[in-house]
């Protein structure tokens, strides 16, 4: 590999390389305990809300570096409403889930209206939302904690806690058979789909990467999928929350990369005037981004109260920061128009690994925050400087 090729390769896969290095570092520092099945499983369960919120946040950031500060409070508020409905008013689970989603979407639409059509800066609108919904959560809960431990079906469906795993239908003894089989199926499916894509390209005479790099890349990713599934299988299987995370990633990954709506997010963030003059309703794009954020905040709210088996007025604090951080670490541009769902997920996993690694090492929680802050700053500096091609801006 020549030097320029190496440079291009590192540029394209920077965050994945960083993730591997960080993972390796912590594997050494923790004496391998971060690789234990239970810990791998926990990285997913603990950070489920980050994956969901970061995906929604990406859409907001794509529209021009705009963020949503209210998500943490909305997560808390929707969770509080759900807990109240299920526990105190005995509303059936399905109906509660629906109501929670509607409430979240309505909150999103309310904020989105001001942002998109009246053009109040998103920072202001969502800062107001952050305050208001934190207050309202307290009002709904009367400042108390509502336990949802008794709502077992809800907790099992959305949770990532003690027993929230998909039941194993195959019994291989000691290892979760279903999880293993799902892992093999997905790894194989990935290889088949990539191969199919490559073959169509060859058939249509488009440019393709070299066979060696294709196979190395594909087999490596398939191996990672399998290894991940194997680790989960060694623990208790597939956490139910993984299904929701997986669905969100799949759906939003598809929307952003393959649909005209997804395209419009990138276009607005890249150049709003040009987008408007191309016949795209840019107000609607902003509206969609922030309404959708409400919907995903509601889902994150369910996941949160299910994992913690209760609703408290303090839940969801700093969740917005985790989501925003993941987006920027995952390569989204602070100016908008650039960023992908897989990138953001890599960013979220990186944050999760750093969290988990430091916790296992017994690093003080305050120092953990310092490290996370520095990682975020470094990621954005890298993004800005590498794009400008030199360190300092013109004065």
């Amino acid at each position, binding site marked *: 590999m020549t030097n320029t090729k190496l440079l291009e390769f590192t540029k394209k896969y920077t965050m994945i390389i960083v993730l591997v290095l960080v993972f390796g570092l912590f594997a050494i520092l923790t004496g391998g305990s971060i690789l234990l099945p239970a810990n791998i499983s926990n990285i997913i369960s603990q950070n489920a809300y980050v994956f969901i919120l970061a995906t929604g946040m990406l859409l907001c950031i794509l529209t021009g570096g705009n963020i949503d500060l209210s998500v943490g409070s909305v997560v808390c508020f929707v969770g509080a409403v759900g807990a109240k409905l299920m526990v105190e008013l005995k509303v059936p689970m399905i109906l509660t889930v629906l109501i929670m989603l509607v409430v979240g979407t309505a909150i999103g639409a309310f904020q989105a209206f001001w942002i998109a059509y009246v053009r109040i800066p998103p920072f202001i609108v969502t800062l107001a939302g952050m305050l208001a919904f934190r207050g309202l959560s307290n009002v709904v809960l009367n400042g108390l904690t509502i336990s949802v431990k008794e709502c077992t079906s809800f907790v099992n469906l959305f949770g990532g806690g003690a027993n929230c795993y998909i039941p194993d239908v195959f019994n291989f003894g000691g290892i979760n058979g279903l999880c293993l089989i799902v892992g093999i199926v997905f790894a194989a499916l990935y290889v088949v789909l990539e191969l199919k894509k490559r073959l169509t*390209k060859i058939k249509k005479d488009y440019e393709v990467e070299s066979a060696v790099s294709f196979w190395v890349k594909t087999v490596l990713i398939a191996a990672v999928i399998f290894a991940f599934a194997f680790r989960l299988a060694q623990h208790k299987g597939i956490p139910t929350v993984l299904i929701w995370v997986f669905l969100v990633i799949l759906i939003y990954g598809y929307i952003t990369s393959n649909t005209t709506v997804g395209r419009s997010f990138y276009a607005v963030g890249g150049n709003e005037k*040009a987008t*408007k003059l191309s016949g795209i309703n840019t107000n609607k794009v902003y509206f969609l981004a922030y309404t959708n954020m409400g919907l995903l905040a509601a889902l994150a709210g369910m996941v949160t109260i299910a994992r913690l088996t209760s609703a408290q007025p303090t839940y969801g604090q700093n969740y917005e920061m985790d989501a925003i951080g993941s987006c920027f670490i995952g390569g989204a541009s602070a100016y908008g128009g650039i960023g992908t769902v897989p990138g953001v997920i890599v960013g979220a996993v990186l944050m999760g690994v750093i969290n988990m690694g430091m916790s296992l090492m017994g690093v003080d929680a305050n120092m953990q925050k310092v490290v996370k802050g520095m990682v975020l700053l470094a990621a954005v500096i890298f993004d800005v400087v590498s794009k400008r091609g030199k360190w300092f801006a013109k004065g």
Partner: protein
Amino acid sequence: MAKILLEMRDITKTFPGVKALSNVNLKVEEGEIHALVGENGAGKSTLMNVLSGIYPYGTYEGDIVYDGEVCKFNKIKDSEAKGIVIIHQELALVPYMTIGENMFLGNERGSKFRINWNETNELAAKYLKMVGLNESPQVLIKDIGVGKQQLVEIAKAMAKNARLLILDEPTASLNEEDSRALLDLLLKFKQNGLTSIIISHKLNEVSYVADKITVIRDGCTIETLDKNVDDFSEARIIKGMVGREIADRFPKREKHIGDIKLEVRNWTAYHPLYSGRKVVDNVNFNVRRGEIVGISGLMGAGRTELAMSLFGKSYGDNISGQVFIDGKEVHMNTVKEAIAHKLAYVTEDRKGNGLILSNTIKLNTTLANLEEVSSHSVIDKDREFAAADDYRKKLSIKCPSVEQNVGNLSGGNMQKVLLAKWMFATPDILILDEPTRGIDVGAKYEIYCIMNQLVAEGKSVIMISSEMPEILGMCDRIYIMNEGRMVGELDASEASQEAIMSHIIKAG
């Protein structure tokens, strides 16, 4: 002969893909008013930016000799330290600061840690008096009119101890009375020994105020006229500005002009911020199938505003008037509707309004017509790639692949991507706004060929251009616009640069 204050020798300045200035020479004597005239894009402003250090030493070739020594300015501060002060066409005043604060912005009185407001206001008052402006230094800039703001700019320049004052279109936004007052002020300063360079399109003002006139055309100095020696009449200046033969710079085409395709009647639009200001004033025009119609005029004549207000009301307020396509009245309230009526507007500002620089050629090509490459709003990526690649070949866009970012392309290639984008939207009527601005001669020729091909397919093209040779070389019919109104219509056979210019000047 008086002392030469400034001499610019063989200045050459190239931008990626374009030579903006080529061996320009300019000599300014101490105590004179020297006018720079030339068409839009001739290179006047570029020359002044070189002089003031906006384009630092080393980014151009040639020498600037000022007050007997060769100067190497790296930034504006360097040239200001020598007493060269430039006042730009767009006023650089902060609306929510007072006159005094603006006047000493970046040049504050007092110490670094404490601004001396008394001194600031006192000095400001002195300079305001010097320019004859009867306002308190504590009035906010937003509360005084444009004419007075222009005077504040001059006072600000005087506060920097200007020896050489450069004014870029100082009267462009002023009315008759304010303009005259400003010019008289310059004459008064001249008596006190100030040297000025004035860039202007208004030739009557130039001949009124200037001692010498240097004509710039296509980045070259053509001639310098002296008040005492040469004829200073407008006709003489215009001849210098436009006097060039149109060689084979324009590809020939066979004409097949059909029925009226688009007709606009009584079209009026108001400025979106200043609700009283008519930007497009009762405009009537039409274009036929297979015809290239030109709209000529100076910058700020309202041509872009006319085009954008037609294109789904993307500019202006209180728009009124009628549009007929194929004889039927149509209403286009959004860009989407305009595109649906097979109209396309190719913007003059390809970086600002046209393209998404941070994204690929592919994405840009299909953006205005995503329906074509998608079904049920899911994009078929292979089809999209094929479409973009097809246009890459058709318009010979020079790039390794359509997956490349548009931001990395040269001006000419960017323009082709922009054209590809709008051709992909399959319009019947294309409005091309300054389609060859800032691109080199070779790329211009290619763009002209594309235009010929479009009309050969029976489409209608409206070309807005400030470059008269291309208007004359390409168009079947020419409208002339000035201050929001259509002030003339010429057939290609009767049109000449002098005729167009005189229409503009008469109307002004």
